[in-house]
């Protein structure tokens, strides 16, 4: 099986869906001529032409709204936000129009749009460019939200997202773009709403998604060799819909939970998960649900300190030890 980067996996998904469905259009800042700010869309303009690979002005409210309007007529836009941090400029369009138009019309209108781009910290770009937006997006019924950690999941989830008839928010990570993994050539999909147990274990369940999956996997190796703690890692992959059955199955096995995510703690995805775990698995728990989040402040610029603000391998190890104590 070919080994390719996360970036290439997304590009392949885009190319395959552009080939498969003539209604698919890729739009965003620098997606065409510039070959993509992070080279995700490199080569697509040459292959598919300017009608379907569209460079936009820097106008997130305008072009996201345009994509939503076009999707109501059956176009399937895949809109890139260069940083998901820019979603706040298009907030009205996403949370009022994309999320609500089906409901407000009593089901008469569909909005088959994908909005994709990176939503992460860790790249020393300061507070305005480092938001993790999955919690705010997933808060809105009508939207679907997915956060892939691996190249395989990135390709499969994006293909599912583009084929979906609901608006799907697809959150990537600039630090993962260069990560390599095995990705099949050709057609396959990863269904939305299906978690993946990335590591089996018996002593502690780590529920996580996105780049925190990779930190957790590395931490699990150290926990096993140095502390004899066998960690199970549930990669959610999809925030809404959510595969909570996978979380429950794991909790019933290990009886202890640590949630790891690159979100600020207040009202994060993990806060929702904690609530659900204590409601639905209270009798299975040997101790309180633990959470490891980003330190609760705007993203610090200082490069050596930013690493410590976010989840990292050492912080996961420390949190896991606290969770099993």
């Amino acid at each position, binding site marked *: 099986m070919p080994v390719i980067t996360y970036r290439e996996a997304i590009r392949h998904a885009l190319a395959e869906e552009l080939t498969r469905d003539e209604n698919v259009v890729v739009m965003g800042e620098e997606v065409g001529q510039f070959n993509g700010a992070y080279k995700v869309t490199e080569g697509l303009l040459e292959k598919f032409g300017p009608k379907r690979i569209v460079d936009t002005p820097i*106008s997130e409210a305008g072009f996201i709204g345009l994509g939503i*309007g076009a999707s109501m007529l059956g176009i399937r836009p895949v809109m890139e936000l260069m940083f998901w941090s820019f979603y706040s400029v298009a907030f009205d369009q996403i949370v009022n129009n994309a999320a609500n138009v*089906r*409901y407000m019309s009593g*089901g008469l*209108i569909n909005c088959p749009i994908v909005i994709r781009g990176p939503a992460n910290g860790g790249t020393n770009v300061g507070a305005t460019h480092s938001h993790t937006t999955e919690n705010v997006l997933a808060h809105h*019924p009508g939207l679907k939200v997915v956060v892939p950690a691996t190249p395989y999941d990135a390709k499969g989830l994006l293909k*599912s997202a583009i084929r979906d008839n609901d608006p799907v928010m697809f959150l990537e990570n600039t630090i993962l773009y260069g990560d390599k993994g095995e990705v099949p050539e050709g057609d396959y999909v990863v269904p939305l709403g299906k978690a993946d147990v990335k590591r089996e274990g018996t002593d502690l369940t780590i529920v996580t998604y996105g780049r925190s999956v990779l930190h957790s996997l590395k931490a699990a190796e150290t926990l096993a060799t140095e502390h004899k703690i066998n960690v199970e890692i549930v990669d959610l992959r999809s925030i809404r819909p959510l*595969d909570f059955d996978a979380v429950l199955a794991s909790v019933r096995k290990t009886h202890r939970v640590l949630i790891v995510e690159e979100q600020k703690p207040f009202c994060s995805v993990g806060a929702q998960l904690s609530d659900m775990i204590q409601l639905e698995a209270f009798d299975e728990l040997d101790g309180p649900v633990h959470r490891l989040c980003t330190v609760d402040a705007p993203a610090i610029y200082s490069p050596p300190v930013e690493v410590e603000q976010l989840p990292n391998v050492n912080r996961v190890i420390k949190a896991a030890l606290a969770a099993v104590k």
Partner: protein
Amino acid sequence: MSKSTQAKSHASAPVNARLSKEEKVELYRKMVRIRRFEERSLRAYQAKKIGGFLHLYIGQEAVAVGCCSLMGKNDHVITAYRDHGHAISVGMDTKGLMAEMYGKVTGCSKGKGGSMHFFAPSLNYWGGHGIVGGQIPLGTGLAYGLKFKGLKGAAMAFMGDGAVNQGAVHEAYNLAALWNLPCVFVIENNGYSMGTSQERSSAGELHQRAAGYDMAWEVINGHDLYEVRAKMDVVLTRAREESKPSVVEIDTYRYRGHSVADPDKTYRSKAEIEEYQRTKDPLNLFQSILREEGNLDDALVEKIDQEARAEADVAADFAEASPFPTVEDIQKDVYWESDNPSQRVSQGRLFFN
């Protein structure tokens, strides 16, 4: 040019000259139907049958009727929250509209949208929208979709005068002009952005902002149905045939507050409203024109009015008698997938309560 001569010149525009007597009467009828529907809605609102806001279209009827009467099969309409006139103009059933405002499951949006959110995709009507200017990028997207599909059509994106100060509108203008999208941005200038007059809220002339994007613009007297049709026909034809966007400012006036519960005495005088009603009411003006042309007489005017009142009453009775949606209906129509379970591909939970 005298007003009378001006009105006659628009009457002789090709798009108006070819109208049959029946078609002209039907245009007048539609304006009357809107007026009576709105008056009946007001009574229902005052009786607390309708909640929230009620943005009435009284005074502006010639704008929606005139513009929507020009729609071809590939033309589309999207508008803001003052959307009852457009909904009736495109042909939505008034029973479904009234039921929607009563919050009944028989409403056009099953009681889920309310007064600001009427939709009829089968009539190429993409809604009322509640956030000022938020529908304008969507309308630009409709135009984009038409061009992408190679269809000769136009998207009419309506907004109030206050929306012209929203940033999203300027992003939409830029995209439409940059990409030559067949979008007609229609500013229904009723002179007041909620309770702030145009001169107190907007620098310069609204239509002239189009020049900043190298877009064509037009100004229309929205009290004159013939003028609306004559000038909009030129703009729409350019959109369809050349795929060119335009901005159209249509001068109009509303007789009621922004929403009916809003006190409008603080920003305009009763005398101003009465002056408009006396001299510029679009129903009265068009009625006079049709009488002069020999297309209307007292008997027909009375018949149309009675039928419109009866229709509005039937709509209200229908709404009153209809059932509300159930509590279980709250979570329907949220996701396409949850409403089409046999075709569902994703897994996991979609709802969390």
